């Protein structure tokens, strides 16, 4: 989902940076508040953030004959909300643009918006929608993480289509073309990512249910029910 350095006109770089910066600032502020409130939240952030580090470094082959990587942002979005997640993503993306030539400093804003903001925001929205329903919590985690992954690539396609509308057909044609590259490749990866993160969540529930209950990620009744099942 990285837009490569130099591949986005500077006007668009500024636009996406302007969107990303306030979100990051809010995320840092939220993070400080969460940590002051409950030191036990720090290990949870370590696990959810750790998976963003791991999954976003795995470039996996897909059915389209090209490679792409999962994002791993959904779990963090569920536990900490989208804004704190964008701070963790920004750290990963900064590392990748400084040392790996994946993305770059000028396009960092655009990449943060796709992977760190829109993806987690969609995942968080799905989670909030399903949270208080009778839907199994692991299914909720699966859907939230898989869709956070998908929408990250959806956003990358959108960002590129806005900057490079096709001569014939304009924005819409470009968008379809970029979606064909990014989104189609991503479907199998998103499904596997969803299942793996649901499994990870099962282990968090088994080992540290109290932190999930205290942070009101899921209600006590839901966690206990899942523990009975798990």
């Amino acid at each position: 989902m990285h837009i490569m350095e130099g591949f986005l006109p500077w006007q668009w770089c500024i636009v996406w940076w302007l969107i990303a910066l306030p979100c990051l600032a809010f995320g840092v502020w939220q993070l400080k508040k969460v940590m002051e409130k409950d030191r036990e939240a720090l290990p949870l952030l370590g696990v959810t953030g750790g998976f963003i580090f791991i999954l976003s470094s795995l470039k996996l082959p897909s059915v389209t004959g090209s490679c792409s990587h999962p994002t791993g942002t959904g779990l963090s979005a569920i536990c900490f909300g989208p804004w704190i997640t964008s701070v963790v993503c920004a750290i990963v993306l900064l590392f990748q643009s400084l040392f790996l030539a994946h993305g770059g400093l000028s396009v960092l804003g655009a990449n943060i918006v796709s992977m760190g903001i829109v993806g987690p925001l969609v995942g968080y929205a799905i989670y909030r929608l399903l949270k208080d329903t009778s839907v199994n919590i692991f299914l909720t985690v699966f859907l939230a993480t898989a869709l956070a992954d998908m929408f990250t690539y959806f956003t990358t396609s959108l960002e590129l289509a806005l900057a490079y509308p096709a001569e014939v057909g304009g924005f819409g044609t470009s968008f379809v073309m970029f979606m064909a590259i990014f989104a189609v490749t991503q479907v199998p990866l998103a499904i596997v990512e969803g299942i793996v993160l649901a499994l990870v969540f099962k282990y968090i529930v088994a080992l540290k249910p109290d932190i999930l209950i205290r942070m009101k990620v899921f209600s006590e009744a839901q966690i206990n029910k899942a523990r009975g099942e798990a």
Partner: protein
Amino acid sequence: MVKNYLLEILAVVAVLVFCGLFLYTSSTMEGAEFAGSDNVGSNLIAELSGKSVDSFTPLIPQYEPPSGEIESCLFALQAALGGIFVGGVFGFWLGQKKSLTETKVNQ
């Protein structure tokens, strides 16, 4: 028994299907290079804007890993960092849980 490990089984099946898909694609699809979708995207940008890929130069100068080996080394480092966090915390929680049940038993 099966119900208890449903997620584990699903995860293994999903990974196996994923590997199967890869083997199938790589053996049947012609021209499957398994390049990064980032690069495929960049090629499309070049096509849409009518410029060559090489004419896109970084707006802000950046370090580029001199070879694929260095790049994969740095990626492995990133994954290792994440792995340390995850493993460390799960171990910490496991210890916490254990000591908690032990204190309960002792009381």
